[in-house]
């Protein structure tokens, strides 16, 4: 079912708002991770943010090409029309869009949120030792850090869910334009209107 232009605009506005919120949250978390000297997690987060931005670029390219197809092509024919655009532009854009989602999932797996939790536990366990040693300033600092670690862990969880939400909103708009494509089991690119046999994606390359 192709979305009306009003619904497409509404979904598009929601997507843009989500992207802006994601950027703000990521920027704040980067500052917190720098303060907590969590360089490995920070590096993973930077790659994750880049993957989300890259996927949004692939989405924008796809939508520009979709606009070029025109509105008179039926839903049943739209994906094939996109793929048949000259110089493999449509197929490449659709493939980049699919690969972008995979890249985000890999990036999420790349940053180890548990490392933040372990650091929190380590920081918290040192508080009592600092108190026993009579170092109130250190105890206070360690306790504050343990709360910041807890906050950073929640922020990482939030960013992962926000990225999934952004991916779903992008898919909603893509499907809402009548575009349907996916990756076959051997990573073959498949789409509605593809006349290769259904077994094609089972054949080893």
């Amino acid at each position, binding site marked *: *079912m192709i*979305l009306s232009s009003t*619904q497409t605009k*509404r*979904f598009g506005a*929601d997507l843009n*708002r*989500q992207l802006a*919120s994601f950027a*703000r*949250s990521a920027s*704040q978390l980067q500052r917190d991770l720098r303060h907590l000297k969590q360089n490995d997690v920070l590096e993973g987060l930077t790659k994750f943010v880049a993957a989300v931005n890259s996927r949004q670029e692939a989405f924008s390219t796809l939508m520009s090409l979709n606009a070029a197809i025109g509105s008179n092509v039926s839903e049943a024919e739209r994906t094939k029309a996109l793929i048949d655009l000259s110089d493999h532009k449509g197929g490449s854009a659709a493939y980049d869009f699919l690969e972008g989602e995979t890249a985000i999932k890999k990036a999420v797996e790349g940053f180890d949120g548990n490392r933040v939790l372990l650091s929190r536990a380590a920081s918290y366990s040192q508080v009592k030792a600092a108190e026993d040693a009579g170092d109130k300033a250190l105890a206070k600092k360690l306790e*504050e850090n343990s*709360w*910041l670690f*807890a*906050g950073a862990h*929640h*922020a990482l*969880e*939030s*960013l992962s*869910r*926000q990225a*999934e*939400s*952004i991916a*779903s*909103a992008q*898919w*909603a*708009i893509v*499907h*809402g334009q009548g575009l*349907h494509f*996916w990756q076959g089991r051997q990573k073959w690119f498949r789409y509605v209107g593809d006349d290769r046999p259904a077994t094609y994606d089972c054949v080893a390359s």
Partner: protein
Amino acid sequence: MMLCSRTVWLRLSADLKSRQSQIDRLSVSLEEPLRIHHPELQLKMHRLMHLVRASATAFQLLVDRAHPLKLDDDNIQALFAQPDFADAARAYDASRAAITHELQLWEPSESAKCDAHVEMALSLFRQCEALESDQARALSLCQLQLWVWDGVLHYTGEPADATSSETGA
């Protein structure tokens, strides 16, 4: 005692409120298409939105009271001694658990996800989860962590003897 500047806190509070409003707006725009094409999903969205609003109301009371204070153990206990604060803490914990439960029960099939409205509902649900995580983050910045275990409300900084007698440990 705040772990972030007043500016960061105000920005975070405003962001959470804004996202809550956006989630409300998106749910309203999905209402009619889901009612026509996916009535079960519409009911699920209703239940979820009810829980998200309950969670947000309880969360707001918690942070409104907690954030201006210097939260050492004594005034954490004073906060939880206030009946409406403790009720809000229980309501917050219960609604979070119910949201998690509600979302665990549903994963659309690949074919259903080809529908733009189903995919956008999925986006809405993920936004609710993200909002919940950021609420937990905000509470961490207020140095507040709470949970209910065996029907008893617990929090970091509660008196150790109260914990052991309430849980029967």
